[in-house]
């Protein structure tokens, strides 16, 4: 464990921050501007993992293993969430015969 931490710490924290920021921004942009629902789901994962990365980095730099344990939980929940998301996607494909997000325009009162 300590070796992992020392390896991680060899890279300065700022680099992780910048990397995470870019990953998150890419993910966010994808979620906002792409129309393919599959891509949107992938971008969501990207955002997730950017945060996970950051969490791990902070954990290592603070010498607190709690953050890394937390990441495992997040991954677990994310996996569950993806199954739900994909199930919705399948239903969407069956119902409107498309995975274009703009086809889901009846989600209103």
């Amino acid at each position, binding site marked *: 464990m300590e070796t992992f931490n020392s390896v991680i710490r060899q890279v300065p924290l700022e680099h992780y921050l910048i990397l995470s920021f870019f990953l998150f921004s890419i993910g*966010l942009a994808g*979620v*906002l501007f792409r*129309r393919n629902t599959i891509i*949107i789901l992938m971008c969501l994962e990207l955002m997730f993992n950017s945060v996970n990365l950051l969490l791990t980095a902070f954990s290592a730099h603070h010498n607190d293993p709690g953050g890394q344990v937390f990441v495992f939980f997040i991954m677990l929940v994310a996996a569950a969430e993806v199954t739900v998301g994909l199930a919705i996607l399948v239903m969407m494909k069956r119902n409107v015969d498309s995975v274009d*997000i*703009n086809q*889901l*325009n*009846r*989600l*209103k*009162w």
Partner: protein
Amino acid sequence: MIMLVPLLPLLGAIIIATFRRSLKGNSAGMLGTLTIGSAFALSVMLFLGHDPATGPQIAHLFDWIHIGGMNIPFAFQVDALSLTMMLIVTGVGTLIHLYSIGYMHDDARVSTFFALLNLFTFAMLVLVMGANYVMTFIGWEGVGLCSYLLIGFWYTTPAYNYAARKAFVMNRIGDQGFVLGLAWLFSLTGTLNFNEVFDKASSLDTATLTGITLLLFVGAIGKSAQLPLFTWLPDAMAGPTPVSALIHAATMVTAGIYLIVRSSVLFELAPFTQDVILYTGLITALVAATIGVFQNDIKKVLAYSTVSQLGYMFVALGLGAYSAGLFHVTTHAFFKALLFLGAGSVIHALGGEQDIRKMGGLKGSIKVTYVTFLLGTLAISGLFPFSGFFSKDAILAHAFDRSPVLYALLLGGALITTFYMFRLLFLTFFGSYRGDKHPHESPAVMTVPLMVLAVLSVVGGLLNLPHVFGGHEPMKHYLESAAEGVSSEYLHLSATTEWTLMGLSTVLVLLVIFIAYGRFAKKATLDPEADQLSFFPRLFARKWYIDELYEMLFEKPYGWFSSKFSSIGEDRVMVPLMNGAGRVTQKAGQVLRLVQTGNMSFYLFAMVAGIIVFLIMTLYGV
């Protein structure tokens, strides 16, 4: 054993109420009578075992309210005063229960009736046995509730319900005074236990005590039907006759007297309140007596006589003659119960007829009722040697001691009482029958209580035989230990004066009986309807227009305010306010729902934008 006395009637009430559907025939009545009878037997045993010199026996059941420095135990107190009241309540109550078996035997809800009757007695016992003011208050409210339920017992008649409600509301007005008085007392002494309060009473200043005692007296006014709150009692006639007997004789109305005698320590220290009591009693005695002369309902006449007699008791209390007042309570319990039960027997005989104008000549057909009723009438008229003579004479003598004018007024009231009671007697039992029913004597279960009460009414005077008759006023000496005020009541009259006063009242009473005989027994002068009377008789027959006055003073303005609050407060303020709130919500919803376009991308965008806004807010600590 002490706690069994109130517990037995309560148990009876619960059992009868629980099994009221399966109790057939007389069993409910038997059970009810049995519990009260046992309570009476226990009271007698307590009475025999109690030595007045040792002071009160207190049965502490448990600590009821224990908050901070306040400690109000659930405790009963047995001393000379509460024993006297217990004996009256349970003794007369037993006879009334017994009588009710006969009177109510064909009523469909007879079991309910007996359950309530038992509960009523229980409440009254709690009232007189409580060892602190809070216990008294429980009983106080209990009798109020039970009287409401019993007056409105035949609830299918709307007028009876109104009478019940009136009784309840009138009592409630008095209760407010009682509660306020207790709160004040508590705030100053920090306790409501009788003995502790009385110990601390002398440390309070006179003005405060006057205020407290006046408030307590307001409570007594409500419960004991004095001016200006007496109007409920005559209307309480709506209930079955045994209920009237119970209310008028054994329970309820004597509560006010009891409260004042119990608190005599406080009242003795507040001379102004005593004067107020004196004059309230005097005015009530006279006003009620004048009304009684022109009533045509057999029970209404008795009701006004009760109000009037209660006035006498309050006069006695106002004069500081506590034992005389309590003596009158006792004898009054005997003869008023007798008169009411007798009236019930008459009503029973005539199949529900209550108008004395449709009676007459009944002495031949219902002999037992007649004889007992006659004895009761003689007793209430205060003719020697009946019980009423001694008790009323004691009050009159004390009044004479204070001022001859007071004596003259009270004697006048007593003579009016004699007049209307004999009017009632003669119109009911003498002359020829004016109705169309076939009178029949009541069964033994009803006449036996009458006979017992008649005997008590005749010999009740022995309980407190005054010195001039060679007696030693045993009741007064007995009560000295319980009510402090009793020991300070002295009569400064010489034996000659007393004899003169007694002789005077006896002669006048006989004269009035003679006048009444000539007017009502021989030719039965019937009063026309109230509208056709001249001014004063109409004023009396209309009860001095007090009900109308209250209607004008309270009901009308109350109704006016209510309608104004309804038309302005409700229609113009509250309704627009409520509707406005609803309308704003609706409009806002109509506008805001347009935000939901249904477009998924827009939702996502809105979500991210929202998060960013929150992040910025957090960042800048807004």
